[in-house]
């Protein structure tokens, strides 16, 4: 490794990153300005302070990546910045009163992003406390069940309130569980990969973790009635197990367990049944005015009214969609920005996912690979479940669209995932600069 090669590569990456970030910044500002123009016929009065605040946040995030993880993937943060900036402009359009609060959350998210990069200088730190982290994740996941602490909203018990502030601990619990799984599977993958019989059926004791994860998912489903979180947890676990072992039988068993869990959920309580009923019969004329069916009908109406190019920001009627700022923000994008807007959003998520998986491929260690895959899968599945839900591809399970939807917890949690991916991509490994294959040539 020559001394001159490193700075040169670093400089090239940094340039790319900065250009992308400027584009992200520009898109965020233009979107914000257009909201004012489209909705009230004037540029928002606070565009200046807004530009400054967002600019400062984006710049801080970028500098943090440069300084704290100089060899990191340059695309991850700017891509996330576009989505977050777009989301903020949309929230300003949909719920002007909470826009300031959400801008604060975005800044807090970036701050958290920097703090994570600062705190975890070496991702191997995370590999050292497998069970502590796993336990902490489980506790966070199940915290809303604790009486007096957790409370129910819209039929799901996933919130806790501490000192007047409420948040969804599962968003953070999920990340800890993924870290635990990466750590656990990295050390056991060879054992788990050893099968029995012709079909490579896992040994009974290797099924333990799978059943445990299944149990935890069902616990979330039954105790908190949060189908989205339950689905996500189980999906991520099965994917990580499969990636770690390369055994299709785990996928098959996972599918069977998923089916059993779904069936249990369907027969055990009305929540799942009604969701499926809403999904199948959303557009029946006499049901359109019922909230459950109506939200899906309105989502379709919004998407259909938007067509290819959309009505233009501020010109549509996304106010007719219930929960438009959280679960249904994708429908609002579809109405006002059309198929062009929804395609761009899906592509941005695909870029994040592609970059995340690339980190996994480029890492040389099992833990790093599994963690990158797990974190990426969280974002991918979450996006698929909510977008599929609001477009009626699958029954709706309420989840925020990462980075875009209203909600502080989700925004901060996603920035933690990003920070971890950035850290993993920077590849500091035991004090030695881990070299990307590309740089080695």
């Amino acid at each position, binding site marked *: 490794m020559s001394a001159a090669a490193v700075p040169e590569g670093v400089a090239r990456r940094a340039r790319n990153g900065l250009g992308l970030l400027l584009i992200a910044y520009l898109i965020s500002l233009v979107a914000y300005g257009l909201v004012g123009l489209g909705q009230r016929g004037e540029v928002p009065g606070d565009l200046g302070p807004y530009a400054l605040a967002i600019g400062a946040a984006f710049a801080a995030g970028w500098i943090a990546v440069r300084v704290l993880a100089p060899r990191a993937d340059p695309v991850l943060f700017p891509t996330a910045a576009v989505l977050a900036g777009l989301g903020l402009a949309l929230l300003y359009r949909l719920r002007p009163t909470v826009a300031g609060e959400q801008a604060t959350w975005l800044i807090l998210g970036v701050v958290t992003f920097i703090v994570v990069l600062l705190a975890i200088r070496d991702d191997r730190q995370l590999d050292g406390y497998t069970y502590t982290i796993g336990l902490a994740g489980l506790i966070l996941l199940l915290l809303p069940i604790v009486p007096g602490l957790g409370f129910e909203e819209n039929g799901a018990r996933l919130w806790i309130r501490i000192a007047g502030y409420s948040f969804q601990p599962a968003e953070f619990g999920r990340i800890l569980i993924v870290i635990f799984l990466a750590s656990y599977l990295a050390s056991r993958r060879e054992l788990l990969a050893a099968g029995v019989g012709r079909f490579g059926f896992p040994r009974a004791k290797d099924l333990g973790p799978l059943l445990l994860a299944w149990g935890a998912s069902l616990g979330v489903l039954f105790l908190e009635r949060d189908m989205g979180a339950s689905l996500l947890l189980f999906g991520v676990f099965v994917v990580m197990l499969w990636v770690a072992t390369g055994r299709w039988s785990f996928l098959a068993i996972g599918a069977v367990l998923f089916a059993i869990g779904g069936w249990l959920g369907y027969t055990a309580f009305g929540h799942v049944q009604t969701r499926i009923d809403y999904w199948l019969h959303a557009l029946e004329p006499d049901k359109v005015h019922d909230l459950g069916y109506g939200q899906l*009908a309105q989502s379709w109406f919004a*998407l259909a009214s938007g067509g290819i190019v959309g009505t233009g920001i501020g010109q549509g009627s996304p106010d007719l969609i219930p929960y438009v700022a959280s679960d249904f923000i994708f429908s609002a994008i579809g109405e006002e920005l059309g198929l062009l807007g929804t395609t761009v959003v899906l592509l941005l998520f695909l870029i994040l996912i592609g970059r995340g998986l690339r980190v996994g491929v480029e890492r040389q260690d099992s833990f790093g*690979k599994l963690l990158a895959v797990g974190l990426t899968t969280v974002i991918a599945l979450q996006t698929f479940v909510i977008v599929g839900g609001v477009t009626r591809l699958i029954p709706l399970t309420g989840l925020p669209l990462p980075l875009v939807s209203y909600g502080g917890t989700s925004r901060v949690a996603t920035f933690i995932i990003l920070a971890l991916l950035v850290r993993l991509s920077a590849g500091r490994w035991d004090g030695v600069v881990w070299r990307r294959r590309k740089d080695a040539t």
Partner: protein
Amino acid sequence: MDRQIRRLGIALVALFAVLFGQVAYVQVFAAERIADSPGNATRQIRAEFEVERGQIIAADRRTVLARSVEAGPNQVYRFRREYPEGDLFGHVTGYYSRIFGRAGIEQAFNQYLAGTAPELAVSNVTDLILGRTKKGASVYTTIWPELQRVAREALGGQPGAVAAIDPRTGDVLALYSNPGFDPNVLSSGSDRAIRSAWDELNGDASKPLLSKAFQELFLPGSGFKIVTASAELERDASVDTPWPNPHVLDLPTTDDDLTNYGGALCAGGASQVTTLVAFQQSCNVTFGVMGLDLYGERTGNFGLSDQADAYGFCMTNPPEVTGCDEPRIPFALPFQNGRFPEAGYFADRIPARAYAAVGLDNVLTNPLHMALAAGAIANGGEMMAPRIVTSVRDAQGRTVREFGTESVSRPISRGTAAEMTQLMLSVTQGGTASSAFSGFGIPVAGKTGTATTGDDSPPNAWFSAFAPAGTGEPPRIAVSVIVLEGGGLGDAATGGQIAAPIARAVIDAYLDG
């Protein structure tokens, strides 16, 4: 592991491809069908509010009945619908509400007013090319504002309705009903104000949203004798045919009796009366006899059902069949045609034959239908379909659509029409409406009606007429008036006393003006 990660990448891309496919399906391929579904009404109406809607114009081609005006800054919608005449034309224009949809002409001619009709496609494209703002087309109606105003004044706040048509064309000259509603309250204002106005209108027992002139149905009473007399004249009777005139008609198979109005003797108690005198004096008993006479015991035919059918009444068979699946008389607005039972209904209901002949039992109608029936007599026996819109013009004043006149049926021959005119003229000349028309310069042919609704409420008073009658020139107006529940006169109300003067005022205003 890298192989799995790559496979995972492919799987995730595939998942997103399916997602994209679904989004494209909803936003492009099925978009039109989904967006046009009825559940999406709010969005559709909001889109309409972005276009300057066409005007609704009166027959004088000046008076604006409905127009769109800029809503001003800080409004959700660019345009606001305005009805300058308040409640005077409420039932004609209908309302255009962003919350409760449309009614009346606003509904029936919405495609033109909103500028979405196929006829307007060329004009819309031209607008687009020339950079002109898209505007809806204007609808020209047949309603005369002055006549509408006279109808309102003549009713003088009594509950009731007036319908006036031109018998030659079917053009609706006036169509007023009281109580009415001001469409402004449903079309502009805050959502809360609109909702509360809507609740109030719908909660009102007098049904102000429905026009009593053509959307509700009432017992016609003696006013229906126009049809009964037509049936007899079409058979073999003449104006001079003598009929028995007992004091009371003892109806077969029951204890029921049919008496004259107020139980009085008709025509001074003569043992026989001619068709003309029976009609002129509105002898119930004699018409009851005609009703029994019109039923063909051998054939099972009922001449009165046939005649009502020819006049455009919907055939019913109460109590099972009372509705009108297919309107008999075409009209742009939702029009409740009159109802009359089919012959089968009368087979084992002998008294009903007599009651039906005097417009009781299950006979129902409204002023517009009665005006059309009177108009058919005025028009030499040919009944014209009512027409309320003659043309549609785009924002540049080009006529994009014209609506012609349409003949519905020929309920009576020309000869019968002449005889009927003779009968109806006698009503205003020495008959039940003579006092209302004393000193009136124009010869009017009419028929009174006083229908007791059965319960203890005062009777509904009717008068249906046309003018000028019997002068050799074709009559130019046919009008029918109903005053509900005795109007200002209570139990003492009769068609001649309370409804006829209103018809006179309308005829006077139209033929003088």
